[in-house]
């Protein structure tokens, strides 16, 4: 069982080019990050490729982790999501396959499952709850699935500009709530 402190220590030692710490970090966190890549890409081989990029990035950037002030899992998840969405945006044609990601989930919850502080989760959920349900859904779609404004506009059946105005206003509201 790895605690957040353990993971933070692994990142710190990875920053010092400690391969064995990096290997431990991979073992402790790759399940979650692979899950993140699969969610965004919904394609196993692409997710595997991106997962490689993610850990290479982590290897090279571990020393800059502290600058962000993030909790370790937030930082790792952010790296994974950013690279997965970069890959998603580079696709020339949609290649989403039908394979459903949910069937692949591990039965055993990983050590990182409770990695994001529950207070943080509760706060976000409460603030998303203050938005109109469609707005909260749009924010979630954009974050978890990497939806674009175009995707969201189609999903909600509104013009692109309307979608954008609507979402920006939702973000503004969300921000006000989160900093309250």
């Amino acid at each position, binding site marked *: 069982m790895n605690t957040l402190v353990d993971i933070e220590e692994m990142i710190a030692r990875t920053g010092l080019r400690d391969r*064995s710490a*990096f290997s431990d970090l991979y073992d402790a966190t*790759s399940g979650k990050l692979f899950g993140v890549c699969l969610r965004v890409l919904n394609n196993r081989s692409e997710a595997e490729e991106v997962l490689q990029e993610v850990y290479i990035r982590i290897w090279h950037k571990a020393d800059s982790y502290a600058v962000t002030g993030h909790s370790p899992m937030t930082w790792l998840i952010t790296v994974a*999501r950013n690279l997965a969405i970069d890959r998603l945006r580079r696709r020339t044609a949609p290649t989403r396959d039908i394979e459903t990601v949910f069937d692949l989930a591990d039965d055993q919850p990983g050590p990182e499952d409770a990695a*994001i502080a529950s207070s943080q989760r509760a706060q976000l959920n409460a603030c998303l709850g203050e938005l109109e349900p469609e707005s909260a859904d749009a924010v979630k779609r954009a974050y978890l699935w990497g939806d674009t404004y175009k995707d969201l506009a189609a999903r909600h059946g509104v013009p692109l500009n*309307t979608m954008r105005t609507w979402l920006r206003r939702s*973000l503004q509201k969300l921000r006000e709530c*989160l900093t309250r």
Partner: protein
Amino acid sequence: MTTTDIPDGDDALAGEYVLHLLDLGEREQFEERLRDEVSLRDLVYQWEAHFAAMSDEIDAVTPPVAVKNAILAKIAPPQKKSPGLRGWLIGLTVAAAIAVLAVGTLLRGPEELTPSFQAEMSTPEGTVFLVAEVIPATHEIVIDRVLGEAPEGRVLQLWLIAEGADAPVSLGLLQPEGETRIRVPDDIAPGVRTGTIAISDEPPGGSPTGQPTGQVLATGTFVDL
């Protein structure tokens, strides 16, 4: 839903950036600003932290072992690209004294001394990971230990099981850490490319029997580079 009252503050803009909703031009502009504006960077970090809470609903999925191996291979310490170069330079230095040797080395040229095939050896759990590269011109195997070490009081020994052979042949012991270079005897060398190499743990000094006596930790086969 109306289109009036468009908020154009940085709060929402940073949120859009973190969600990857900006188009390419907007994204580049934003990143330009990020380089100089600390407060904007803070906004980005805050959004990243808030949004990351959403990932809690994503289940962990164990990736295939091959992914970890590929990553470890990529972060392996850089092999001296032409390991023969050092020898080549030494050759130059001693050229005056040992002209024949120096000429021989010079004639070969560094490009022939680069590895042309490679094998990765790892344990199923990924606790030991080695990369072996072969330089055919010199019959050398260069083994780089990326990860893992011999059990306490043991040494690691490298073996070749030639294609069709019934028993492994010892190629030598690995250095306690870092890179090991082993020159393969000329009669065995041709079988390396198609054979299997393996690492076992053995008592200090190596296997007393000429065959692996300890646990075979990892095996690998070669692919062309």
